[in-house]
């Protein structure tokens, strides 16, 4: 990336000339704004950034970014990103997806993009509903959720996205909330800085088909008590009075009050983003209001060689091994093993 020649860019440089067409009040506006604000952070030229999306309301985002953009088909953005990054390791690739796109029709690709550690930054807008198709249950809709396609309530257990990607060995896992703009910007920045498969779940509000899906704990008035902001190397403390915490009892997390029953800060679970074992990431991903608090922040950030690095490394190794035997002779390649000559 030609960082040295790059003039300093601003949010405005990343705004395209297209009118934004989401419903008024949609959480996507905030996500778009934070995305545009974050882009100058990376010192990457606009033409070297690619936004790839699938289908759904989230899929429109690339049209609004003044970078290269590819609005693909339902669930398959990760596959296209895999090919693009494999062919062009020099590009910065972002994938924009939703809960239906990534977890339902694209579930298989999500798993494999994560395990391959494709160097893409995937932002999944999770609104627990199908919005573009006007309100059917999604893989993250809670059991019992009544929608047009589930008039008596859905009977299916929801997927916990971060638990899934942790199981798939994602090397960067984070969560934020559409309206928590500063935190969201920070998470996007962190995802963008990560080398490897980054998965950022954004709890997003669909005010038309699933209004208030996250309000119970994301609302300003309650979030201090009901959410847990993860900070690397720090004990897990929450609450307006900063007196509550999470203690890990074996593999079982528990909510404790500092100062009660002899509990001190030293007893609390200290968050370690760089924990190689994804087991604790999964425990964290399963913590939820009301039994626990809903964690946001960077859950996991581990270094691992990326798919494109390994792809290129094998080619370099093979070329070096071949070069030791002399230059590649295309004619000999065509000839294969044995030939005969007719004169």
């Amino acid at each position, binding site marked *: 990336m030609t960082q040295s020649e790059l003039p300093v860019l601003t949010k405005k440089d990343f705004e395209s000339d297209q009118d934004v067409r989401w419903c008024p009040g949609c959480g996507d506006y905030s996500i778009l704004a934070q995305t545009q604000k974050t882009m100058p952070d990376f010192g990457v*030229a606009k033409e070297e950034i690619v936004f790839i999306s699938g289908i759904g309301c989230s899929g429109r985002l*690339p049209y609004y970014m003044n970078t*290269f953009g590819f609005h693909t088909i339902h669930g398959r953005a990760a596959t296209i990103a*895999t090919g693009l990054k*494999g062919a062009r390791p020099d590009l910065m690739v972002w994938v924009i997806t939703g809960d239906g796109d990534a977890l339902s029709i694209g579930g*298989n*690709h999500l798993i494999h993009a994560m395990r391959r550690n494709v160097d893409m930054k995937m932002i999944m807008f999770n609104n627990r509903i199908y919005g573009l198709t006007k309100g059917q249950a999604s893989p993250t809709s809670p059991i019992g959720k009544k929608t047009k396609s589930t008039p008596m309530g859905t009977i299916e257990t929801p997927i916990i996205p971060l638990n899934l990607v942790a199981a798939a060995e994602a090397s960067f896992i984070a969560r934020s909330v559409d309206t928590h703009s500063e935190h969201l910007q920070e998470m996007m920045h962190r995802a963008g800085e990560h080398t490897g498969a980054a998965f950022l779940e954004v709890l997003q509000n669909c005010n038309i088909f699933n209004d208030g899906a996250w309000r119970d704990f994301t609302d300003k008035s309650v979030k201090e008590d009901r959410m847990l902001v993860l900070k690397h190397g720090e004990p897990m403390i929450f609450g307006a009075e900063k007196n509550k915490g999470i203690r890990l009892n074996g593999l079982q997390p528990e909510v404790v009050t500092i100062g009660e029953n002899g509990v001190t800060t030293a007893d609390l679970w200290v968050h370690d983003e760089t924990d190689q074992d994804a087991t604790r990431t999964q425990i964290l991903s399963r913590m939820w209001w009301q039994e626990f608090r809903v964690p946001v922040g960077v859950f996991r950030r581990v270094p691992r060689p990326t798919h494109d690095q390994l792809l290129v490394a094998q080619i370099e190794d093979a070329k070096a091994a071949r070069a030791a035997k002399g230059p590649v002779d295309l004619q000999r390649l065509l000839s294969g*093993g*044995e030939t005969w000559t007719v*004169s």
Partner: protein
Amino acid sequence: MTSPKSGNHTDSVTQLDRVTIRFAGDSGDGMQLTGSQFTATTALFGNDVSTLPDYPAEIRAPAGSLPGVSGFQISFSSGDIHTPGDRPDVLVAMNPAALKVNIGDLVPGGGIIVNTDAFNDINLKKAGYAVDPLHDGSLQGYNLYEIPMSTMVTGACEGLGLTSKQIELTKNFFALGVMFWLYERSMAGTEKWIAEKFAGKEAIAEANKRALNAGYAFGETTEIFHTHYRVAPAHLAPGTYRNITGNEATALGFVMASKLAERDLFLASYPITPASDILHQLSSYKHLGIKTVQSEDEIAAIGAAVGAAYGGAMGMTTTSGPGMALKAEMLGLAVMVELPLVVVDVQRAGPSTGMPTKTEQGDLLMSMFGRNSDSPIPVIAPATPAECFTMAIEAWRIALKHMTPVVYLSDAFLATGAEPWKIPQASDLPSIAVENAPPSDRGGFRPYQRDPETLARPWAVPGTKGLEHRIGGLEKLDELGTVSYDPDNHHRMNLLRAEKVARVARDIPATEVWGDAEGELLILGWGSTYGSIRSATERLRERGKSVSHAHLRYLNPLPNDLGDILKRFKRVLLPELNLGQLRMLLRAKYLVDIVGFNLVRGKPFQIGEIEAKAESLLGESVEVSK
């Protein structure tokens, strides 16, 4: 087909023009290996060869059972041949099941070489023989050669410290040795192959070598064969040749295309029979800079190929029918975003899983129309295994020049069948390179501004300054490429996409008519039926019949000269290994009453079948003229 020439029996050698042999045994007996070793040696000897491997989809069906029989047919000749032969002259049957499955195909009076050691009660019962066919007189019409192969290799491998099971596995080399003696082939190539294959396993290498030599010596010293056979080298055009299968030629064609286009090749595929070998071969070319990904599924494979193409590489994917079905939506996206892409469909017998290892031409209409809405894609098809090389390059030439996905239709017969290939001079092949859209500081880049001649849009790859733009599956505004729901624009864009593909017809060679330019009957074909049709046409013309042959490599768009060609013949016969897919297209387009000849048995046409069908049509036309 065995036609002894002038009864030359001196030195107990019989001169033959052409021989067809079928090796048959259990799928664990190594028949594919035996067949391919015989093929390699025979090709090297200078005969024209054509092969047909025929194996079950099960890796190891129960030993000795009928479904577990694996076969490999090779036809070789001192003349020019186009097919692996209709019926074998010689059958090598390693067990009763192999005999039972294949005996019906053998020519009357043909030779049968059997491993008598395998004709025990258990194997006879598994094959459904109530009585031993070797002794009940049922094989009287054939020349039966009974050889206790297992016993012979046990003797030959004595003292090597191998188990009886290990020794038993060498009996295919014994059979190969017998055949090498019978047809005057050298053992050198196979001995070298054994040494390389079993390097580090000296005892196994030695056992196989001894078995091979024992078979050869058996032929030489025993008196069960009264003669051996000589098939003189063929008079092929001057040049350097190798033996090649369609899948090998396809893979090499793509390597060559990448060199000629001066662009990186990026293959993403999901394993599927009978296409996987192309993935395997290209995966072994990392030293050439070729990137391959084994994707998580068929959709991911074509998705990655589209992503690579978007990035400016030669993105491609290889599959067979069921995988092709899964790729439909992504192909539609490639049509919409107008990126170059090559999709290889090595067709197999269907529908659904069908018969994965058997051949068919059933995916033509799916390739043409198997997407939502009007979604035109060029479709091309190689006619012979060796031609897969040039057609693979051709697929890329069209994709790059016309900025379009291209479907390349091979099939199981082409993929696994082999023939001699006159190796081209790589340095003689013309460039197929195209330019990326250049950087710009003017702003207002138009990603759908078309080349006036081809209607291709610019290839504007990420990383190019000033070309930032958005594309996708939503309908585009003409030229600007922004999202548009304008009714007239959508109509215009559909017409433009159709016209762009139609213009590929300006860019393809004239259709060759072999035989006379006009006459009673034209036999028209596409894909792997080439050999059978050409041979049938040759035979008919030798008998003075007014028959010509034309073979289509370009199925969409069809060649501009085809309509005139069809009208120059009284009748047109179109043999296809499907229920009439190309015929439907041609009848619709040219309003010509083409007669179909359609067999879907998972096997190539026999020459005689096409010959007989053509004869019957010629007979009808005579009646009409009376």
